[in-house]
């Protein structure tokens, strides 16, 4: 399950945000603080998470402290599923 979420999120970010579908994103690679994704992507990410995993994320939760790596984001999703 965790693996499935990780793979889906990584593919979505690489294809939609980075426009580099082949780009591998590791589980603990910083996303927001490294500049790979920026704050304009956060709403897309929350819509993607809601549509794919049925987990609603409050706007205030969209920040680097819970969202900076795939691992953090996956844990966040798993806890609410």
């Amino acid at each position, binding site marked *: 399950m965790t693996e499935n979420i990780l793979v889906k999120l990584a593919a979505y970010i690489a294809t939609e945000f980075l426009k580099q579908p082949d780009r591998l994103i590791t589980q603990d690679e910083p996303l927001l603080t490294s*500049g790979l994704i920026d704050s304009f992507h956060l709403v897309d990410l929350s819509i993607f998470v809601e549509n794919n995993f049925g987990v609603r994320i409050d706007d205030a939760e969209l920040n680097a402290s819970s969202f900076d790596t795939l691992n953090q984001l996956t844990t966040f999703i798993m806890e609410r599923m």
Partner: protein
Amino acid sequence: MMNFSTCLQRHYEQTPDKVAITLLFNNRPPFPITYHNLIQGASAYVKTYIQKGILPGDVVLLILQHDVDLLYAYFGAVLHGAIPSIMPFLTEKLLPERYRTDLAELVSVTRPTAIVTYQTFESEIRAALQPGEDSVKAVIVSDLLVCSENNMYQPDFDTFSGLHRGEDDIVLLQHSSGSTGLQKGVALSHRAIFNHLEAYGESICLSKDDVIVSWLPLYHDMGLIACFLLPILRGVPVVQMSPFDWVRAPYRLLQAISTYRGTLTWLPNFAYNFSAQKIRERDLEGVDLSSWRASINTSEPVKYKSHQQFFERFKSYGLRLETLQTSYGMAENVFAVTQNDLKKPPSVEDIDRESFASDRIARPSFDDRPSIQMMSCGKPIPNTKIRVVDNKGHDVRERYIGEIVIKSNCMLTSYYNRPDITKKAFLDDGWYISGDYGYMVNGEIYIAGRKKDLIIVGGKNIYPQDLELLVYEVPGVHAGRASAFGIFNEATGTEDVIMVAEVDIDDPIERQTIGDNIRSIVTRGSAVALRYVHLVKYPWLVKTSSGKTARSANRDKFLKEMQVKGQIY
């Protein structure tokens, strides 16, 4: 005589209980501030500025979040006759050392005598200063000034030096971001701003019944002038949200318009795409946009498709087509240069692409030839004249593309402490050289690109040379061999930032590391996210004969290469 302080005093005396500004933040109840509160809060700062030996005419740098402290510190500086300037706050992405470098540069050019910030940020600020050597006499910690209702200073107008400032004295500075922007503070006088507010107020038929709603940052002219000074000085209520809240929850703007019966907003073009694409139906329940009389698209190229998308998405919530309007502006003219007539939607025309590109003439398209859609930014506001000129400064004919030059009674006094660049910004006969290309039809201006090397993302000006300097530091990149430019992205409604850099390494893993390092250094050094990093072999980049990066040539070369490869760009 009227200046900012006499104007504020009048509001304080005539309508003390009127709400000037309502702060609307996520997870906090709405916070209304009356003119009475505003002057009282500002008085506490006047007192502090006096105690710290800050003199009228001194620059006070404000490094604060968009909150009540910023309001009081700003108008405190005004009432004291000092010159406030807002610097963007350090975000979690920016490297502290980079921020310190920017701040040190800003201090060296602008020479502020005081900096106001939070206690938690004080050490960061002090680290950028050189006590005894630079101009800063005081770092004022806003948390230590208690401005709660129970402990408000009664304003003593006799002590407000701001009341005695002359109309031609400088009242504020505006900077755009990045080290280039921070060294180019636009200095504006009381007279220039009042002249602008009067002319622009007329253009938009501003009345006491208006309610302005905004999420725009105050360190940008659109936020500072249209959504902060215009309402507060003209007695029109404004509802302010935080830009950080809006980007995570764009529906909040529409909810605020509905709740407060908002009539006016200013938005950069991308905000129309962003809102149309990212607002869920459930967040619009009960929203009524029928009070909204004008949403003025400005500060980056305006696109009809963005308006269409926005209108289609929200028309069932009471949005009217003629609400979507356009303007062309710049901080050097205080804010607006032109404004579309609010009674009708902006004119839109299809232009022949080839003629536009090769002859530099905007001919209406015919048959099925490829065309470009252009949307008018309206006519000059009443106090402003514009001309479109060729490279010798001669006027060009209608529909011919040339550079826009501007004359008005609301121009900047100077780039602060920069007589060198101030002089270069004007033609010999006093017309301001905008750096923007455009053409005129029936007295209306259509913006047709930029002569100056500037990228605009989401309404924010970015100087490519700042980004390139950062990239030169990345190991593996040839020294001096990188080029940054913007390419318009139709889906997002704004420019993508592209970086091309020359590297010799072939190993794909090492190349990815270099690419990542480029992204990272740009984000952490400038808070700009690169959309695409293109690594190439030496000598790919086009340079001018004097060795400078020819950004538009590099941009064209990049586009061609991507086209050949069949990639998105």
